[in-house]
């Protein structure tokens, strides 16, 4: 979230798209309700009518996989009808920037496409520079090569009729959204967009989110109270796990993972550190060397010296993609021998789960650390599997639940909140921290006894959280994350003091200032609001970066430092003596001295986003499986998506699988079900696997509410109870009617409530930028179960 949960209450309009916040983030509705009490409008955009839609002023149905067309249509209307915030565009975005005249777009492809590699060369996706290396700009927004005009031209193809024929949403509803949400383009109004996995889990997931962010920029809704682009994260502390880089492509604090090309620290820093000529751009990532060296000092302590490139060579260097699908494809092919699953249950939650369960069969060993024996831990004993045929050695480690251990949990709003252990874990259950501490201590012993060719990364690891087999000290970990001034041994006060000469350490620069000599900031519980009284509560827990509750907050002001919305101001300039008041400003410079989007090298938010793999502007492409031809171009699928074509990677077509399907979660169940399908009270509420469908589809297939039905895709088939409901309606696409069904994905073969796994149906294909699986749109057929 650029903003935070409580801030939702400040919105004048709330658009929930690609999210079912009421069901999956119930607490959000505390603040949605408060906003609505104050007159805010709620828009729910969703293929199905959900418990969120039930609360909305405006329910807008769009077919799964058509978000880009929808939002592009809304943006096009906003541009054509001058509902955008012009001052904001000029001062805070790259709308004025001139782009290389050779940049172009034809029939679904931007310039530079290499069809054989399914990749773009981005030579033309560049700004025009003058002789001093400064970007050329047109503040009048008239130059045909300026971002504003290019965007307007790109979006003009998305007129209401076209968008209606792609999304299946009536054009009047699209218009109503454009007008209602467009009204937040007024300077003193704000609109917020809440999204979740309904947006991201598509082959175009990243571009889906980009369209939301761009809409917010057009309306001047980023950096302001009641605005922002707000990812409702899928699990408790998944924000923390992302910040601390439990992902293959980043190091803690969103530093880039070194690649094999980066042979030395100098080469890595050269590649990872952006440079920019404009002195008004803060270009915050120019600090990358300080954060990187401080991270290496946290990892390897005294063993990280100037002479050994601060132990840079101890870091693994990646050469490929190690995301979820890639890993399971490699496992299926026998390339991965061992797997540690901590609090994860891919045998239910993974895409194309029949293949992923088969992949587990090929492991030499599997460690599962969880509260219960999950489907993953018990894959060898699954229905239809002969345990004698499995050679995998499986270790089940009983783990402690979040309430049974001390530590921090970072919520979607970037608040790191310290928790104490409420109760002791039962039996032999241990915290993840204890489990990892013991594994590291044993590994170190093994490498000391038998060093092999390269023991240093493990033997020299800076690892001091407590002796022996005691519960490690979570505070020691939190302090290491914050970092130290290594000369004085004192905790760092903030990342402003981090250096690239080895005299400071920080396990995550973004969390530097979270645990200082003043104490554990995440443990603070002072419910006093800030001077602007908009619900920032700056002394309640701590939020990254440097306790800034709304990021890019200088964009809530004009270039003189006056808030656009005086009634809900975030920051304001109070003069050279007293400087900024309100939230921690995004940089303390006087107004007008530095641009407001400090994390972009150019200092302006990007409407033209050349960082992405599949294009600087969002373009509609169809999902991997779709019943229709792409109405926008002859490019059916996102041209930068990787196509998997191994065994069990079959793709279905509309002739055999005419029905669109999507998967989702329900309030009563949690993720792959291990925590909720073992709780009798929750099982009582949602006892069985079900599939939701329209009355028309049910009628066509002779299905009654409550019947057992069979759902089939090219990957597999499952049985489930039919929910026949008016909340599902067919979509009219280009004049023809198409049905869509919906499946919760919580069920499996273990626990108190068992049922078929929806992921037996989903494909192995991921987003062009992140490889997140396309769980949300695929093709199936539904028939009544016979006998």
């Amino acid at each position, binding site marked *: 979230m650029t903003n935070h949960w409580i801030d939702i209450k400040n919105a004048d309009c709330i658009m929930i798209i690609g999210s079912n916040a009421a069901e999956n983030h119930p607490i959000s509705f505390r603040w949605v309700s408060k906003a609505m009490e104050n007159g805010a409008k709620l828009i729910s955009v969703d293929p199905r009518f959900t418990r969120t839609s039930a609360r909305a002023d405006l329910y807008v149905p769009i077919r799964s996989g058509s978000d880009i067309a929808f939002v592009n249509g809304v943006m096009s209307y906003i541009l054509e009808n001058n509902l955008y915030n012009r001052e904001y565009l000029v001062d805070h975005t790259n709308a004025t920037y001139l782009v290389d005249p050779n940049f172009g777009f034809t029939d679904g492809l931007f310039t530079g496409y290499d069809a054989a590699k399914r990749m773009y060369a981005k030579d033309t996706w560049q700004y025009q520079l003058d002789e001093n290396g400064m970007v050329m700009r047109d503040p009048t927004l008239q130059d045909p090569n300026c971002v504003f005009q290019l965007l307007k031209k790109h979006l003009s193809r998305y007129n209401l009729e076209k968008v209606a024929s792609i999304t299946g949403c009536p054009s009047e509803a699209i218009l109503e959204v454009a007008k209602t949400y467009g009204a937040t383009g007024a300077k003193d109004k704000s609109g917020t967009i809440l999204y979740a996995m309904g947006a991201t889990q598509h082959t175009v997931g990243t571009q889906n989110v980009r369209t939301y962010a761009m809409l917010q920029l057009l309306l001047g809704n980023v950096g302001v109270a009641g605005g922002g682009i707000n990812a409702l994260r899928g699990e408790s502390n998944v924000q923390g796990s992302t910040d601390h880089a439990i992902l293959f492509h980043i190091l803690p604090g969103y530093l880039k993972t070194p690649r094999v090309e980066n042979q030395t620290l100098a080469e890595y820093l050269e590649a990872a550190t952006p440079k920019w000529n404009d002195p008004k751009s803060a270009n915050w990532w120019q600090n990358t060397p300080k954060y990187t060296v401080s991270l290496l000092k946290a990892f390897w302590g005294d063993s990280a010296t100037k002479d050994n490139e601060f132990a840079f060579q101890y870091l693994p260097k990646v050469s490929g993609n190690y995301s979820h699908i890639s890993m399971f494809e490699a496992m299926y092919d026998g390339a991965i021998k061992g797997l540690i699953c901590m609090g994860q249950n891919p045998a239910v939650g993974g895409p194309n789960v029949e293949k992923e369960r088969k992949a587990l069969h090929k492991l030499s060993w599997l460690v599962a650390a969880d509260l219960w024996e999950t489907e993953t831990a018990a894959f060898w004993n699954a229905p239809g599997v002969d345990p004698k045929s499995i050679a995998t050695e499986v270790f089940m480690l009983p783990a402690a639940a979040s309430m049974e251990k001390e530590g921090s949990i970072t919520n979607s709003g970037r608040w790191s909140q310290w928790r104490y252990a409420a109760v002791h874990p039962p039996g032999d259950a241990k915290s993840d921290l204890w489990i990892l501490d013991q594994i590291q201590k044993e590994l170190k012993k093994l490498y000391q006894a038998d060093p092999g060719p390269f023991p240093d990364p493990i033997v020299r690891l800076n690892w001091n959280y407590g002796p022996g087999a005691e519960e490690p000290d979570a505070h020691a970990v939190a302090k290491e994350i914050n970092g130290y001034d290594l000369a004085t041994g004192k905790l760092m006060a903030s990342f402003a003091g981090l250096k690239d000469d080895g005299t400071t350490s920080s396990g995550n620069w973004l969390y530097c200032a979270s645990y200082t000599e003043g104490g554990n900031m995440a443990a603070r519980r002072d419910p006093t609001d800030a001077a602007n009284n908009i619900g920032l509560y700056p002394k309640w827990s701590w939020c990254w970066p440097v306790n800034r509750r709304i990021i890019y907050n200088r964009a809530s002001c004009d270039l003189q430092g006056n808030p656009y919305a005086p009634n809900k101001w975030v920051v304001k300039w109070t003069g050279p003596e007293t400087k900024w008041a309100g939230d921690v400003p995004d940089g303390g410079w006087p107004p007008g001295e530095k641009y407001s989007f400090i994390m972009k090298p150019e200092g302006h938010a990007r409407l033209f986003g050349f960082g992405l793999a599949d294009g600087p502007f969002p373009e509609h492409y169809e999902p991997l499986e779709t019943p229709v031809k792409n109405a926008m171009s002859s490019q059916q699928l996102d041209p930068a998506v990787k196509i998997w074509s191994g065994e069990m990677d079959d793709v279905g077509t509309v002739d055999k699988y005419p029905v669109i399907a999507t998967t989702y979660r329900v*309030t009563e169940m949690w993720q792959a079900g291990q925590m909720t399908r073992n709780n009798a009270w929750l099982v009582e509420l949602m006892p069985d696997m079900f599939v939701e469908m329209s009355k028309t589809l049910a009628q066509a297939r002779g299905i009654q509410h409550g019947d057992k039905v069979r759902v089939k895709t090219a990957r597999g088939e499952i049985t489930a109870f039919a929910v026949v409901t*008016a909340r599902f309606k067919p979509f009219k696409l280009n004049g023809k009617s198409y049905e869509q069904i919906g499946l919760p994905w919580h069920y499996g073969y273990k626990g108190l409530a068992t049922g078929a796994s929806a992921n037996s149906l989903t494909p192995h294909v991921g987003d062009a930028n992140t490889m997140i699986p396309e769980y949300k749109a695929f093709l199936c057929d539904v028939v009544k179960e016979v006998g």
Partner: protein
Amino acid sequence: MAEKAMLLDMEKCMACRGCQVACKAWNELPAEKTTFFAVAGGYQNPIGLSPSTFTLLKFYEVDERDKVRWLFRVQRCMQCVDPACVKACPVEPVKAMTRDEKTGAVYVNRELCIGCGACRDYCPFTVPVIDTEASKSTKCTFCFDRLAEGIQPACAKACPTGCLTFGERPQILEMAHQAKARLEKKGRRPVIYGETELGTGTKKIYVLPEPLDYYPDVVKNPKVSESLGLFRELLKPFGGLALTAAVVGMVLGKVKEVKEKDQVKS
């Protein structure tokens, strides 16, 4: 101490069912063995109030021509201001259906209850359910044990949106009217239910965003049966202490007979 009440502003309900689970957790009620929710409709489960379910979330799906509505309602004891169940309870001199002096909450004292069913029969909303195995009446207790400690009922505590709000009845009624006005401004046709029903009203005050026709199971004009007086009269000869469920059952049968005769006459 002013009378306590709870606002059920159903416009703010998103059917998360946190109240239903919190009720089970506080009252230590076991889960029921349920099956797929085809019978009750929506996502409702279990199918009704029971000795192990005091709070139940109901779903109402309405398919109108231009629009689908999905309405929700929490169903449980209304906590009447003038509770007929207490009057009907034949256990004397200390009633099994207890009106707690301190908090005003009405709950079943399981030690005294004989499971006769008079409370259920005379409840204008037919809420109490008799646990036939244990021979006890069961229903929402308004968390009298929590109220006694100055803490709000478990359902209100769990409610994330402010749909369930606990407070003093005048203040709760004021909130109800504010909520109604907000909904009317949006062009909806809200109903306050519980303010004047039964004359003296109830302590559970609903704001239903749509007219009562949208909620077919809500009792439209709740009334305390006129035969309550007759029932009390016929019970007198048996005295309080000697009562058994069988005796009360017999009297309830007698009342029914008289009523039917009256109906034939009229």
